[in-house]
């Protein structure tokens, strides 16, 4: 699913097209993606050196406190994407949070072009992950309770908040899961149990340990009741320093941000799979139906008739009759038909009359022919 990749595939395709074009193209694209993300890409022959990219994305907010614009830290991280190629323009375009000017001429190698363009296409992921990093780093040391920090409530998708709790040796991410349908809850619960089994196995010791429980974990004690009332339970991940090192931090943050969407997509796909499977099985079950006895008899009769017809045809081919005999047979058949038609009504004593007066004339004499003198 496109939304789980850090790079936006549509944006990447357009930027690659712009880069590989021999002449500067006139482009003015608006892209709308999952999660209310909007991109605006512009390029014109009047300004052949540069292309302009604007982005509008819902920002990570801390529950009640809505975030207004991008912080200095986020802008700094965006500048570091490809400092030669990317330049932030102020003021930004109306309706967008960030506008970048892209200079493809500064990409030295064609081999590096795809890498650079991929990094630019992952702009939204960079913005969100830097916001999360900033929130984690700026946790106030006074907000501690019994050695653990107060849970930070983060809202990325509307009505789907999740909590991040900073602990001395790890960070705990807790996702309260809510579903509309009861069957979704059961399918998701089966998935969470598999996730726990896989995550806690020896082969996946490097992955963050995960846990599912129907009741809120003790770390969320004191949080508002509306945030803790769920029907899908609570999934928690223990993120250690290993998962947030320089190489993996972006991937880890992006995966955590899209966990809700990932689960919902899996539940939807499973429902579709069950439906397809049932349709397929229905065809198999219907074929087992017993055939009716009359249908079987009809089939047997048809088989016999085809055999008989074949037999008659073969007999006809073997016996060749002279033409005169064939004519005689046809005439006889015709005369019998006429007699039947004429003699429908049976009258006593009428047979004598019929024998004398209603006899069909013979066209051929038994003696052959009589010579006329």
């Amino acid at each position, binding site marked *: 699913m496109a939304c789980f990749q850090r790079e936006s595939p549509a944006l990447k395709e357009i930027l690659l097209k712009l880069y590989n074009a021999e002449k500067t193209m006139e482009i003015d694209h608006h892209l709308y993606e999952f999660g209310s993300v909007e991109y605006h890409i512009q390029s014109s022959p009047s300004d052949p050196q540069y292309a302009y990219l604007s982005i509008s994305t819902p920002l990570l907010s801390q529950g009640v406190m809505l975030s207004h614009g991008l912080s200095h830290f986020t802008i700094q991280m965006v500048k570091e994407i490809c400092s030669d190629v990317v330049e932030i323009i102020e003021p930004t375009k109306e309706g967008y949070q960030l506008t970048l000017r892209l200079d493809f001429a500064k990409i030295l190698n064609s081999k590096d072009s795809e890498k650079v363009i991929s990094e630019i296409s992952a702009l939204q992921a960079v913005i969100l992950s830097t916001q999360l990093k900033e929130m984690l780093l700026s946790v106030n040391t006074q907000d501690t309770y019994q050695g653990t920090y107060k849970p930070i409530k983060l809202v990325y998708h509307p009505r789907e908040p999740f909590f991040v709790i900073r602990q001395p040796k790890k960070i705990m991410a807790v996702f309260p899961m809510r579903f509309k349908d*009861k*069957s979704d809850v*059961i*399918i998701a*619960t*089966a*998935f969470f*149990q*598999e*996730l726990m*089994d*896989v*995550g806690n196995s020896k082969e*996946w010791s*490097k*992955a*963050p340990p995960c846990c599912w429980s129907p009741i809120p974990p003790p770390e969320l004690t004191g949080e508002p009741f509306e945030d803790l009332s769920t029907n899908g339970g609570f999934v928690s991940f223990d993120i250690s320093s290993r*998962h947030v090192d320089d190489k*993996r931090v972006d*991937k*880890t943050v*992006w*995966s955590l941000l899209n966990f809700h969407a*990932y689960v919902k997509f*899996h539940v939807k*796909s*499973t429902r579709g*799979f*069950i439906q397809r*499977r*049932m349709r397929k*099985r*229905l065809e*198999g*079950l*219907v074929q*087992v*139906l*017993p*055939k*009716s*006895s*009359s249908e079987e008899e009809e089939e047997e009769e048809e088989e016999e008739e085809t055999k008989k017809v074949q037999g008659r045809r073969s007999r006809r081919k073997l016996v060749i009759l002279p033409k005169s005999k064939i004519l005689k047979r046809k005439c006889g058949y015709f005369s019998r038909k006429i007699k039947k038609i004429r003699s429908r009504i049976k009258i006593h004593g009428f047979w004598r009359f019929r024998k004398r007066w209603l006899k069909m004339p013979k066209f051929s004499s038994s003696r052959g022919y009589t010579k006329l003198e």
Partner: protein
Amino acid sequence: MATSLRLYLTCIRNTLEAAMCLQNFPCQEVERHNKPEVELKTSPELLLNPVVICRNEAEKCLIETSINSLRISLKVKQADELENILTKKFLRFLSMRAEAFQVLRRKPVQGYDISFLITNYHCEDMHKHKLIDFIVQFMEDIDKEISELKMSVNTRGRLVATEFLKQFV
């Protein structure tokens, strides 16, 4: 096949062979009407004693017979919640397409998961032993299909979980 399942199915088969003696019987109350008496249950003299065959607390079969019709209701085993929803979905799916099966009832009897209604007309059109074979085969196939569905759903969940955790490694 497990021994208990074989015994259960054999018992159902023998009961159906004895119960499936149906004949045409016009409705006694409404002129020129011909209704399956097992559904109406207005004339007790036309009904035979219903038989319940239980494999265990969760699985049972109810066979109700009358002079011109026979109703078979099945309760399928549901070990956990996932099997519960899969069974409900699948049997509801089949019931909605009852015309394809001819002998299937659109709505199961209360307390059961799926019901069949066999009338004397079905017995005239189809062989009795084949009808019974179909019912017994259907029961086996349903159990098998629910188990396979459950396994498939769990396997999919495991694969998806593996793919998700790969991103952290």
